[in-house]
């Protein structure tokens, strides 16, 4: 084994990436015994579909948390962009290109969050808590409390078609976008800047990094990813309903933090979020199959998030999310 490979294995061990992977395997083993329906092709396809929306929604938000901020409005952007996408599909026969409309719309909503955060110097927690309500309200205005259907086979096929048998296309999108974002996170100026801001905003500023601009970029990216997630979720479900994206507020944070990105910023990364998404999706699916009711599931998931933060947090740093 080469010296470099040795240190990278050592690094991986030290950075605690094995714990979440072990949890994934433990969950698979546990649920296989607990439920006969778990380890079936049909169920796996289902998990892939569900997990894909979550993964897409987490991709940009991972960067936001990496730089020490937080985006609570991801689920609301998914809902609003979902509603906008269906509206647009019903007004113009856009077909597949509605996906771009969704990404642009999501990007604008995210950039708005970022601009208020960066220029207003308000904690991102407050900004996105506010916009969570604004975006949700706007979406319900559009939907008027009903599920809105659309009819575009091409668009539907983006999500539920299966280029690879048993793998819904939405999973290909999600996995491809995840791979792309992982490279962006590790190998580009943008990714490095996210780590630097999260590791020490004052240090980054002192080194002349345009921190404010990058904050807006990160929130805009979070919006683009959420927009994509919204459009594909709608394509998968065939409609945009008022409850779309509701579970994403907790699930995105849970997946990102469980994956190993620290809420205090600078540690982790979008590449690790994949494992977090797998854990949350497996938990959701497995508990459902075991017949655990919704309320108990909420208790379990909430506890998992808190436990993950307790385990993963570097307590020498102050745990303030700005």
């Amino acid at each position, binding site marked *: 084994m080469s010296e470099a490979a040795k*240190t990278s294995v050592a690094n991986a061990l030290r950075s605690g990436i094995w714990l979440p992977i072990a949890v994934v395997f433990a969950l698979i083993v546990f649920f296989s015994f607990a439920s006969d329906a778990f380890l079936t092709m049909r169920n796996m396809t289902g998990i892939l579909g569900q997990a894909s929306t979550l993964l897409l929604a987490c991709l940009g938000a991972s960067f936001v948390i990496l730089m020490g901020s937080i985006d609570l409005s991801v689920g609301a952007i998914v809902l609003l962009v979902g509603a906008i996408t269906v509206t647009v599909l019903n007004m113009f026969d856009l077909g597949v290109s509605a996906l771009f409309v969704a990404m642009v719309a999501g990007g604008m909503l995210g950039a708005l969050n970022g601009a208020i955060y960066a220029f207003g110097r308000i904690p991102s927690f407050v900004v996105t808590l506010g916009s969570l309500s604004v975006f949700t309200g706007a979406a319900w205005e559009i939907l008027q409390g009903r599920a809105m259907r659309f009819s575009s086979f091409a668009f539907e096929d983006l999500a539920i078609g299966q280029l690879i048998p048993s793998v819904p296309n939405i999973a290909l999108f999600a996995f491809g976008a995840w791979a792309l974002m992982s490279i962006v996170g590790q*190998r*580009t*100026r*943008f*990714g*490095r*800047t996210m*780590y*630097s801001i999260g*590791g*020490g905003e*004052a*240090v*980054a*500023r*002192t*080194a*002349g*990094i*345009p921190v404010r601009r990058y904050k807006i970029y990160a929130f805009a990216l979070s919006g683009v990813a959420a927009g994509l997630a919204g459009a594909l979720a709608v394509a998968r479900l065939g409609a945009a309903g008022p409850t779309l994206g509701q579970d994403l507020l907790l699930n995105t944070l849970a997946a990102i933090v469980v994956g190993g990105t620290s809420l205090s910023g*600078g*540690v982790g990364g979008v590449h690790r979020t994949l494992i977090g998404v797998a854990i949350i999706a497996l938990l959701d699916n497995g508990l459902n199959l075991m017949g655990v009711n919704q309320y108990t599931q909420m208790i379990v998931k909430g506890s998992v998030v808190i436990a993950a933060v307790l385990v993963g947090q570097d307590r020498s740093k102050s745990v303030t999310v700005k």
Partner: protein
Amino acid sequence: MQAVALNAKGLSKRFGESVALADVDLTLGARQVVGLVGENGAGKSTLLNILSGLLRPDRGAVDLPGRGPAPHTYAEAQHLGIARVFQEQALIGALPVYENLLLGVEARFTRFGQLLDKRAMVAKAQAMVDEANASIDVRRTTDDLSFSTRQLIEIIRACLAPTMLYGQSAPIVLLDEPTASLERGDEATFFDLVARIRQEGSLLFVSHRLTEVLSLCDDIVVLKDGRFVTRVAPSDVDERGLHRLMVGRERDSDYYHEDRQRPADADAGAAPAFAARNFRREGAYEDVSLTVAPGEVLGIGGLLESGKSAFGKGLAGIEAPQAGEISIKGDPWRAPVAGALIAEGVGYVPAERLAEGMIADQSVAWNMVLPSADLFSNRLGWWRQRKETAVTEAMITRLGIKAPGPKARSSRLSGGNQQKVVLARWLARDLSVLILDNPTRGVDAGAKEEIYRLIRDLTDEGVAIVLITDELLELIGLSNRIAIMRHGRIETMIEAPPEDKPTEQALVTAMLAGALPTGVAA
């Protein structure tokens, strides 16, 4: 022999690599006022922090005869009759004065256990203010009062709370630079309070105003580099003598490579490498201008609150000034913006290495290329990993940085090597101006020497250096000229050619000039 109120023995404290206090003894007698003097970084605040329960010493103990065990928190200290005025104001601006005066003892003014009895609180607070012969309406919001009045409120709280609120008959009052911002009228009130404490308790008084220390104190303790130097009676020493005790070290011209100092006329007539004019930032500095020639080291000295560090941040465009323009190599004047300045070869090394200088959790390479995304990524933002590693390895060799390699975590390096990493980040660029704020703080002697040599190497290449530092010897040894800042202005410019270096005493005098209390002759 006088009764002892406080007896500290063998106090030692380290912060990481740097020794803040080494084996310091201090005795405070009953009904005694003791002055504590020393340069910035001599360990005065650390000592006060230990005495007031905010810090635990690594070694040594504090004995409070007749009071009980040494405090572990400031709250415990207050109950033992120890009160403190901090260097930075510790008042809550949005609260009325009376709540600030009674902070921490509100529980005594409650009715039915929870409701605060405002009238009783106001009465008590007003009684404290009257006792001090001050005229402050305690119902006013603290922020509406002048800085000097707020300072006085803190002094009143520290001096009177032990007797009037905690029922201690013999308070121990610790004052850290209490008079730095007092106006004349408030100063008179302060002197009355000191006289009062002398009657009933003990006072430890930290100040840079040596004449004030000489006239107020019964005994003066001198600290230097975290060590006890001496304890003298004011009658046995004058201001000059105190200066000498505070700073008295031999300056070694070799250590600072003074023979390599660029002669003043080397670039006569050439455009300055860097010029700044009319810099102003509310509450920090105003009307500051300077020019630095290529290869010159311009030193900036001054007390902690002189505004020199804030000015350094302004020059580098990191905390933009409200007014002020810079010009590089005679280019047109414009406002300083960090990113643009870096692109033009202006580097900045902050004083707080871990808070502002480097991300300790990231690798050496990461910290070395931090400001240089323009050099280490292509137009699409793709990161040039190989170039980063190559440049970092070269820098590690060039500066003799003791690190396992470019990928090593910065937090595992010693302070001196960390500082070299921060400096290396600017050497990796085409540098024309380097602004340094305390470049050798928390750095061991060996690394210090290497940093000094590096500064000389840079000036040989024609880099202009602005050196902001609290270390007088470094300031004298390295600088071609020394600007002394007081109250946010450059008040004095001292030439420092190798054959005619100013003395430390001369610099301290310039830093302190005008900071004398009323009624005391300089």
